[in-house]
């Protein structure tokens, strides 16, 4: 997916940069001019379901408070089919609302469907809602595409914790030292 598409569909990075700007703000921006795009896109990614997602936080995320999040899915498929949406909370984030998958009948290109989910976290930090979409089209094929919705609670450092020791080797290169299993 390229920067271009990012602006058209899932500009979720906005939520990271502006954690306070939440309410009723659609996280979708459509460029008014193509000059924003640049002359050539350079990001080439893996195949996936032709689905785009937008989200909107309904209130300011707070520790221990339920947070409603509107999810809007757009079919980019020219084929009709069934869109299945599964949602669960990432580490540290609890999904309060119904956990069962939801199916949507998709008939047309650019057709949208919505779902509201409620989440809750008991501490401050950066958390993600995991959204797994599956589009089964009329040609009996299915594809998946996953999304994550960032939820920043509080003004805390959200830098990732290294999984091992960050050291320098003999050449000065940074290395991430992880433990090996010793095998007899």
């Amino acid at each position: 997916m390229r920067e271009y598409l990012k602006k058209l569909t899932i500009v979720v990075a906005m939520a990271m940069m502006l954690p306070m700007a939440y309410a009723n703000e659609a996280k979708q921006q459509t460029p008014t001019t193509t000059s924003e795009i640049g002359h050539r896109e350079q990001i080439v990614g893996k195949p996936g379901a032709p689905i785009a997602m937008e989200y909107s936080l309904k209130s300011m995320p707070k520790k221990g408070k339920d947070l409603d999040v509107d999810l809007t899915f757009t079919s980019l498929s020219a084929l009709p089919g069934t869109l299945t949406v599964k949602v669960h909370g990432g580490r540290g984030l609890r999904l309060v609302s119904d956990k069962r998958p939801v199916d949507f009948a998709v008939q047309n290109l650019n057709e949208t469907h919505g779902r509201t989910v409620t989440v809750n976290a008991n501490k401050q930090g950066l958390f993600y809602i995991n959204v797994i979409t599956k589009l089964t089209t009329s040609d009996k094929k299915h594809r998946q595409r996953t999304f994550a919705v960032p939820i920043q609670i509080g003004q805390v450092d959200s830098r990732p914790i290294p999984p091992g020791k960050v050291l320098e080797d003999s050449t000065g290169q940074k290395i991430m030292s992880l433990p090996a299993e010793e095998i007899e």
Partner: protein
Amino acid sequence: MLHRNMIVKSFLLVGLVMAPLALNQGRVTFADAEAQCGSGATLVNNQWAIVSAPCAPTTPTVQGVFADDPFGTYDTEWVVYDRDEVNESYITLNLSSPILQGTGYWLKSISGSNIAWDVDGTVTPLVNSAACPSSHGCFEIQLIAPASAGLKRKNMVGHPFPDTVPWADVRIVAGANSYTPAQAATNNLLTDTIWKYNGSSYDTYDSTTPGQIGMLNAYDGFWVEVLDGAIGQTVKLLIPKKGNVVGKITFDQVGRNTTTHGLDYCSITQLPARDVIIEAIDAANNTTVLASASTDANGDYSLAVEENTNMFVRVKAQMKRTGMPSWDFTVVDNTNSKALYTMDGTQFNSGTSVVTKNLNAASGFTGNCNSVGTQAYSATRVAAPFAILDALYKSYQNVLAAVSTTQFTALPTNWSVNNVPVWGDKTIGQIGTSHYSSGELFILGADGNDTDEYDDHVMIHEWGHYYEANLSRSDSIGGSHTSSDRLDLTVAFGEGWGNALSGMMTNDPIYRDSSGASNAGGFPIDVEANTVTNPGWYSEGSVQSLLYDLFDSVNDGMDTVALGFTPIHQIMIGQQKTTTAMTSIFSFITALKAANPAQATAINNVVNAQSIVSDTMDEWGSTETNNVSGTANVLPIYTALSVGGSAVNLCTINQFGSPNKLSNYRNLTIDVQTAGSYQITATKTSGIFTTDPDLILYKQGAFITWSGTATANNETLNASLQTGTHILRLRDNLTNSISCYNIQVTGQITPQ
């Protein structure tokens, strides 16, 4: 100084253009050879070198040792000489002449370029004796003494190991006694000096002089000088094998549920970590590298280290080789300063005998595989970087099998457990999706959402984009895509190529991408399937299907062709890279048929079966008739725009989606006869809503210039152009289902 009369021998090497001989094409060749024989040497063009075999050659002849490297024609472009120490003369070797360990050989090439070469072989044979200073044994080299008192005799010898040995550690045996080099000199047996040829003159070393201490390195040949005190005795060099640390490196490979296409934690196996860098690290400071090597194709390694030293083994998530071929593939943590992943064993003492250290990279899954939580991992995911490298190993080894001299551009792969499908700050893991951009791979690692480290096909798909960008060419505009989409032709080819390549490199046509809770879900793409939704030149599904059919040996449908990878690779690194048109199925198939005329009919059958007109195809797709059931503004694929001629009217459409779908971009060709400044304009002629057109100019895939102003409904591009065919691409922001424009080149403004 020694005199090299032999070098003036008439040696008429003609500057022929060489066709490099293939290196041994087995997948295990490079890694196996490195473990036993070191990483090879580079012979500088038009310079003599004294060389040796650092291992026992598999085929111990000139042909077997050297001719599998790209030297060219023997005795025309390169030659090998041996030293006859008895007669003190040189012998020109022929291809069947033996190559012995412990002997030095003169080697020269005038092929026009430096040549990376190596020896394929097995571990150097050792002998054990009381005089040998290593508990592991020594290699013996018998020396020739001078003919009579008052004379000296030089012997040209070769270092027999892939590891460095100090000259001071060598022992000289004369009769029943053994000596250090310094003692041997004192006893008038051997000078303490050794001579190494540096390409133009000799450098001298000994065992005691600071700054001049001799070290015997892999592939080194050198001279020693026997003194007359050795007359009447059997004199031998004992070159010690240094202390060893050996073992196997493995990683946990999480298996696959072929029904759900997700990961199966009840099926975790340990696979060899191949061609990864191993280091013995000094435990005294946790930094100094005591020895280094790479694992072989079985994950085995051998390190030569000092005895009785505290150390630990470090495995780097890096596969690297210098010279030719060359590569440098790493896995780094984009969320922690791009630190290179390593795994470290526990501290041990090397002692005086062989130490075995087998290390495994654990997956981090520790739970009940029949009841996996939403997030599967509870421990450090050490295996992931090595699983990623293994997918890349399969890929580059296949490329090397096709072209053994390939030099790969360094490729960092950014992977982290924090890498989530959110576009944002990559330093905290918000990478959007697994993708290739700006010379790097970014791979998802979000447990319970989307992890790709065990998805070989996904890894190779993305590596395929690296391949296109570095070995071939891609004009793809990128963006979201799926097999049933009708895409821009450049996207269709690039993505279809990535999918097909993943099948070719794994010999498995089922692409699988795992994701979801417990990483247990996923979806497949069968790149062998001939039935494609919305087939055509704009379909990645069609591209992947026909490319895989051209590759594989399974006949299905219209597929009776089985080219294998090499002919496909040759086109990708050849004509597909230089085509004047955009990179597409048209440029590829046109070149493939030209290079394989005997297969043209069979190729046509495969291509035609995907609703692409193949029989009359050219790189422009000028005879293509598939216009999606009569949809306007799909054909022609390219429209000629004459300099100074009439305006051409073209329309963008969005009925197949956006922004990288069919006819979102329209293509024009401009044949520039005279270099100079030109003005190109696009003016909207129809379309209800205001639009914002752009003009982008390429030549042979290279971006020349563009104009992307925000001016409503029209665009002007002033460009300084050289002669030749240019591609002009028109696009807009697709505010209308159809928007049409007059495009015109208003003519040369100022001749250059």
